[in-house]
């Protein structure tokens, strides 16, 4: 424990000094394609940052680019940390909250940390390249990003700073009574060897069914019934994860942090804990999620969403639960497929999958709420896959010697804690060792920047395809008698419609308004078929036509019969498509 604190202090000093480093002189660097070559803000993307580390980096970016970044706290975590959001757009052009919005977060599962760094990388990349790369400049002129690097800051720190495995605590820090004995979080894992990671316990035992691999002392081999193990070979038994029986109830580590799953807390088809483990009291009873939900509810301009988890190399869409299959209909799946399949190309080794059939069938996930309840196209990426180690799938997922090879060949032995002997209060003499918590799920440092960049590239592709509206054509026809017919074509040249089909089905978001000002409007109508003159008249308030949807890669035509001369303006006002005037 002490050792890890010391190590962290050192890391913190490094962070502090990194901030004081100024940009290099221009003649000292040469641009590598696609990356900011002389950024105002220097960040190392080969290590991870605590909640405070991410907060400091966000502040640094916001301070360096005040016209492009607003840093706001959207609420407080359970332990009282600010939930920092970076709002990124060109704040000097247009009303920021009326631009199509893209929401990004990371780290809902506290041990799944890469989302924090991907978020910071995205903020950094967008700001450092604004004005240099046209794609980025246009993106920030016309869209806004709402990025929350960690939505589980308390337990992110717990994962990093307290003893954990690579898969814990996953929950947040609200204490729960897992074994229903009236005590809360009373039997956490214990870091017997003091290395900051919860690894394995083994014990020499004449009846044990494991032996040490004679070719690799890190590795244990299971003895089969037909194996003939010589009598002088030491047998071992596994005793589970490092820990002691803290509460004296005869069980080890049975009530760790939580347990609840912040990703079973979202309000789409939410179900209680007994139906699928992890739900807390009711939707958004986890305070960090409530902060996000309240923000999203107050920002109907959000059209796309992305959350980052780990691991396995997956680009996931809903439904999360098999029972919710009918929510995702064909028209929307077509859009998910287009973006997801592009993602498979951008993210080698990643597969585009559907949660309920390829992962597990659960209710209350974040991506389901974003889509089902708000009509926002949303993906969850499970960051990192073992494909990345050797750029192939040989060695299999979790199979064979892969982890041991990586430990010795790529990480110089930094991933594995060698077995050491300790005295356990219940088990007597034991040995503790195994892979450390930062190996397996978290991307190793030397590959982290690439991981960040590719996931950002996928996110930007998704964001690019939020609706992009224009008034592409206006035609006038004199009807005689002082009447004029004005026909306007409103185009959307991106994949996403202004209303997902889920949105249309339940009228989640208001219709798009297409209005005309400056003339007297006698009648207004939506043109269904221009050639045959099929129209649907809007009898009430025809100057402000209500259009249910402006389809992706498509258009709508509207028509007014007007009188009066002079200039007129046409305005398209769409919650998710933005505000356009001509």
């Amino acid at each position, binding site marked *: 424990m002490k050792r890890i604190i010391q190590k962290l202090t050192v890391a913190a000093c490094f962070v502090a000094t990194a901030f004081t480093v100024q940009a290099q002189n221009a003649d000292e660097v040469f641009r590598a394609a696609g990356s900011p070559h002389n950024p105002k803000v220097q960040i190392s993307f080969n290590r991870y940052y605590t909640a405070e580390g991410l907060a400091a980096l966000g502040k640094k970016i916001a301070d360096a680019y005040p016209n492009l970044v607003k840093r706001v706290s959207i609420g407080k975590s359970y332990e009282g940390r600010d939930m920092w959001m970076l709002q990124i757009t060109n704040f000097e052009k247009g009303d920021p909250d009326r631009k199509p919005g893209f929401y990004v977060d990371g780290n809902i599962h506290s041990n799944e940390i890469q989302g924090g760094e991907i978020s910071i990388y995205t903020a950094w990349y967008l700001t450092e390249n604004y004005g240099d790369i046209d794609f980025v400049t246009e993106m920030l002129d016309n869209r806004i990003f709402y990025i929350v690097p960690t939505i589980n800051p308390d337990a992110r720190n717990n994962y990093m700073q307290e003893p954990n495995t690579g898969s814990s605590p996953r929950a947040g820090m609200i204490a*729960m*009574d897992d*074994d*229903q*004995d*009236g005590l809360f979080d009373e039997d956490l894992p214990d870091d017997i060897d003091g290395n900051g990671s919860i690894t394995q316990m083994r014990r020499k035992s004449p009846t044990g069914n494991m032996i040490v691999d004679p070719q690799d002392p890190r590795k244990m081999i299971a003895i089969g019934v037909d194996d003939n193990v010589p009598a002088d070979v030491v047998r071992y038994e596994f005793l589970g994860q490092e820990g002691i029986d803290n*509460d*004296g*109830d*005869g069980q080890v580590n049975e009530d760790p942090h939580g347990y609840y799953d912040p990703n079973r807390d979202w*309000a*789409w088809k*939410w*179900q*209680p*804990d*007994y*139906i*699928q483990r992890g739900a807390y*009291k*009711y*939707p*958004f*009873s986890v305070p960090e999620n409530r902060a996000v*939900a309240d923000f999203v*509810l107050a920002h109907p301009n959000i059209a796309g969403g992305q959350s980052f988890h780990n691991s396995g190399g997956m680009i996931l869409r809903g439904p999360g639960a098999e*029972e919710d299959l009918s929510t995702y209909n064909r028209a929307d799946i077509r859009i998910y497929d287009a973006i997801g399949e592009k993602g498979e190309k951008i993210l080698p080794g990643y597969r585009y999958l559907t949660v309920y059939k390829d992962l597990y069938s659960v209710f209350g996930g974040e991506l389901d*709420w974003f889509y*089902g*309840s708000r009509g926002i196209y949303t993906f969850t990426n499970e960051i990192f896959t073992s494909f990345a180690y050797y750029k192939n799938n040989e060695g299999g997922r979790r199979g064979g010697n892969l982890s041991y090879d990586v430990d010795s060949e790529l990480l110089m032995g930094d991933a594995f804690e060698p077995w050491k002997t300790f005295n356990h209060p219940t088990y007597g003499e034991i040995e503790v060792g195994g892979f450390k918590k930062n190996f397996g799920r978290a991307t190793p440092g030397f590959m982290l920047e690439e991981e960040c960049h590719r996931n950002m590239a996928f996110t930007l592709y998704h964001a690019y395809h939020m609706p992009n509206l224009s008034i592409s054509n206006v035609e006038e026809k004199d009807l005689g008698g002082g009447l004029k017919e004005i026909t306007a074509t409103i185009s959307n040249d991106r994949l996403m419609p202004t209303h997902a089909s889920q949105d249309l089905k*339940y*009228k*989640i978001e*208001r*219709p798009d308004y297409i209005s005309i000002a400056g003339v007297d409007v006698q009648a207004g109508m939506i043109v269904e078929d221009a050639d045959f003159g099929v129209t649907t008249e809007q*009898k*009430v308030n025809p100057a402000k036509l*209500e259009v249910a949807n402006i389809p992706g890669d498509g258009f709508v035509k509207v028509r007014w019969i007007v009188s009066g001369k002079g200039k007129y303006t046409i305005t398209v006002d769409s919650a998710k498509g933005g505000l356009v005037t001509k």
Partner: protein
Amino acid sequence: MKIKLMRCCALVILGFITTLVQAQDYNNAQQLAQRLRSLASSSSSASLESLTKTLGGKDIWMLTLGTGDVDNKPAIAVVGGVEGKHLLGVEMAVRFAEDVIANRSELLENTTFYVFPNMSPDATEQYFAALKYGRSGNAKPTDDDRDGRLDEDPFEDLNGDGMITMMRVYDETGDWTTHAADARVMVKADKSKGEKGTYKYFTEGRDNDLDGKFNEDGQGGIHFNKSLTYEYAYFTPGAGEHPVSELENRALLDMLYTKWNIFSVVTFGPGNNLSSPWKYNRAGASKRVVTSILNGDDDINQLVSSKYNEIVGLKDAPRSDDQGGDFYQWAYFHFGKLSFGTPGWWVPTVKGDSTAAPNKDKNAEVNFIRWAAQEGINNAFVEWTAIDHPDFPGQKVEVGGVAPFLMMNPPLEKIGDLGEKHAEFIAELAGMQPEIKLVNVKSESVGKGLTRITADLYNAGTLPTHSTMGQRSRWLRRVKVALQLDGNQEVVSGRKVQLIRNVDGDEAQQLTWLIKGKGSVTIEAGAPHTGIVSSSVDLK
């Protein structure tokens, strides 16, 4: 307007006088607060707190009735006002609390009651407003028709009687016709019997936003009883954008989730599984998302229901009005407690004499009008009167219909002793509560400083410590049996701590340990909702 105000003042004064005896009319928020405060100050066994204020600025009250270690005695939560139109539910909850303090305080030795009298205080206030109409929603502005405009098409009191009733428009294209037994009552024409409608039928008001629908987006609000998580009906008026979105819902649930001693919830509201119990359905119970009471729990419901009918004596209950997102189903299906609900009263079925046209389809409005006439309630029906309606120029439009509130909320003198009867029923339920005891505690020497202890863990109650649903839920603690040892004592056989999933009513489970050492050990057993007992045993 003036007349109304005067009446209100009179009511307030009346309210103050009668709190000491028995309220003669339903309480507005202020009167309720006064009544609860005076109850709380009348007894050391009652305490009152406000959990939160609603958006409308009204308190959500919680009364705790209990003595001693209240949070470690088995408890029943009693909840009223889950439906804002149902003021009777508030009254029944308060009368229960008053009855316990006045007449049944001995109950509190073994049981705690948490009483939440009114979960819809923004809505119930409409009963006392200048314009009366049945209201379920709180004060949150909502876009009930999801057209992007908030509260743009409210009711209008077209006939100026201070109430919102209905309006019928004579129109050949309409689908409505008059009821055969009472021409004042409107019903949908039954096309399968060759009937043709001649009326359109709307709530009283104008089509303010000219969308062809009447009053579809008035002062909406979130309905408490539509906004919980069980079978929540997404995107329907009154449900809100997501379950448990409102301050009052969250305040109640947050409180309930800290009360580990609650074994049962009794709700005064539209849902009724007391007149007829919930029925077990194998298909619904075996799906992952459970939609039926579970096997075994239906027997409990059956038992409790039979006690209810025996004690309360109400007959001819209308079909239970269970709805998605309601509270009493949540309390069982998602909170894992034994949950019971009743409206507390309903319009008795009038057995018409030979002069009355038979009410063949048991139309509730026809029955209500007949009952009101029989009881001498003369403001029950607003006779149809013609008005000029600007949305129907040149058409015959009449305003009238059953007066708001009365069908669910009779004049209080009509409920007789139902308050006491329901208190008696809840007392009976408390008498059935799980009660963990350690009995037949024995110790025997096995020699050489070893003692064998045996004890029966006995549930002296009628109800199991854990229903089938309770065994699944994480919100009921296990029955914990723990030995307290000193440093010189050691458990040689048996578990120092064990957690037991269930002990059925009147059932026992034998426990045994081998202990090495001298002196005495203490066995502690129970859970907050079963009571916690301990027993000291001398080692031989």
